[in-house]
């Protein structure tokens, strides 16, 4: 009977939603606990530095190369479109604003999530599966303070730096294509860019975005790792979940932050 099937559907939907909400609550308590116990990560800074190395420095190659390519594509596509309206000199503005406001934080965030985020999840998950976490607990060392928190803060510190490097590299890529290859006037490129890009409105907002994304990705990565079932499938599932959830979170947060920051206009 259709009624029964419909009812079953809603029951399952409700159950699914409840499970997600419960998990979110659990993850929030986890975050709260970790923040409270982050003292170790800061007092024994070498631990955190090590994590900055693993999530930040080792992501440099993919970030810089991607940034360069994205900037170059922006240059090409941007020129094609602007040329049609005789505004090809605004290429610098187009490239800079696109990168600083949106592409820098978002794309760098997505790349960070898939490279560093998944690595963090896999590492913590594997430590759990091989009982290293339990061993640490039995030795009266809080694994959240010693293993989880440094990785979280390492990610949070690395993210804004990576986003800035991405944007800078992208602008350079746009410059290479626009000025060197296509022949847009160099002076116009830079001067129009400087006139249009505002320190507070655009650059600062971009930095805030990358900071927020950093927190989100790092939080998701360490939580999924810590919560992973201690089996091979468990860890692999957790790694996938990190990448997927982080990506969705970045895009959703980007929308919210953009709506908040860039309403523009003179509505008072």
């Amino acid at each position: 009977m259709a009624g029964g099937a419909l009812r079953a559907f809603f029951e399952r939907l409700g159950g699914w939603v409840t499970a997600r909400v419960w998990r979110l609550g659990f993850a929030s308590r986890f975050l709260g606990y970790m923040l409270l116990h982050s003292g170790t990560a800061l007092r024994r800074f070498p631990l955190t530095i090590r994590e900055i190395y693993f999530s930040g420095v080792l992501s440099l190659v993919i970030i810089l190369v991607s940034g360069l390519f994205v900037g170059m594509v922006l240059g090409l596509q941007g020129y094609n479109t602007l040329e049609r309206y005789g505004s090809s000199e605004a290429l610098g503005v187009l490239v800079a604003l696109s990168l600083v406001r949106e592409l820098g934080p978002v794309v760098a965030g997505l790349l960070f999530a898939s490279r560093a985020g998944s690595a963090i999840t896999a590492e913590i998950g594997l430590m759990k599966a091989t009982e290293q976490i339990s061993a640490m607990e039995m030795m009266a060392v809080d694994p959240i303070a010693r293993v989880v928190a440094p990785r979280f803060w390492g990610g949070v510190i690395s993210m804004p730096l990576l986003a800035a490097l991405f944007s800078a590299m992208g602008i350079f890529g746009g410059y290479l294509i626009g000025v060197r290859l296509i022949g847009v006037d160099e002076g116009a490129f830079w001067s129009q860019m400087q006139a249009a890009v505002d320190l507070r409105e655009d650059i600062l907002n971009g930095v805030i975005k990358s900071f927020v994304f950093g927190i989100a990705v790092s939080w998701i990565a360490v939580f999924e790792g810590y919560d992973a079932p201690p089996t091979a499938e468990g860890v692999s599932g957790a790694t996938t979940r990190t990448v997927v959830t982080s990506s969705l979170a970045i895009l959703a947060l980007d929308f919210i932050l953009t709506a908040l920051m860039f309403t523009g206009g003179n509505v008072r």
Partner: protein
Amino acid sequence: MENAWFGYDSARPVLRDVSVSIPRGRVVGIMGQSGCGKTTLLRIIGGALLPSRGSARVFGTLTRDLDRDGLYAMRRRMGMLFQFGALFTDMSVYDNVAFQMREHTDLPEELIHDLVMMKLQAVGLRGAAQLMPSELSGGMARRVALARAVALDPQLMLYDEPFTGLDPISLGVIARLIRELNDSLGATSIIVSHDVDECLDLVDHLYFMADGRVVSEGDPQSVRGSREPFVDQFVHGKPDGPVPFNYPAPSYDADLELAGR
């Protein structure tokens, strides 16, 4: 531990009415089939789990009464050896053994160095100090884990399946080390295992568990000669007895008939 019950969910208790008491200075073995609840017992003693009913008392204090700091203080007097060593894979052997010393004490590096070397010497692996865990064989890894577990001279040692998967030589080494460490530290050791021969040679007292209950106990002599059906089956490795050979299934004829159709 008195009358402890434990279950992850109330419909399926893992431990039923288990009462075990372990006197100081002895080596005690807990044996039984896989899944009978031995590891859960160990975790309750370690304070990682609380019994759903009944109580567990370690060093004279109820585990239930301990707060976080109390729990950590209790654990510093314990050492635990995990089944496959559970060494920290991102650190060298030296750093693994030095871990507890660095985390819990303010000893200077020179003193830590001497202590680490002493512990490694006791397990015979002083020369392997700079190797990484991935470069060690199973037996060596377990010995390093043992050195790490006794780093702060604990009063209670917990061994989770220390003999599983080792070759006969390593088996003998570990068994000897367990006994030596116990006696030299004046500590108490609890070994969870299903390796009959090694345990019988090693322990002062044995508990047998099946299905979440303690079914038998005694010293090695009496256990060897026991006529209790479960003990007999376990000790002599008989395929059928109180623990059935066949997994519960409908009658054989019925299954064959169905397939034949």
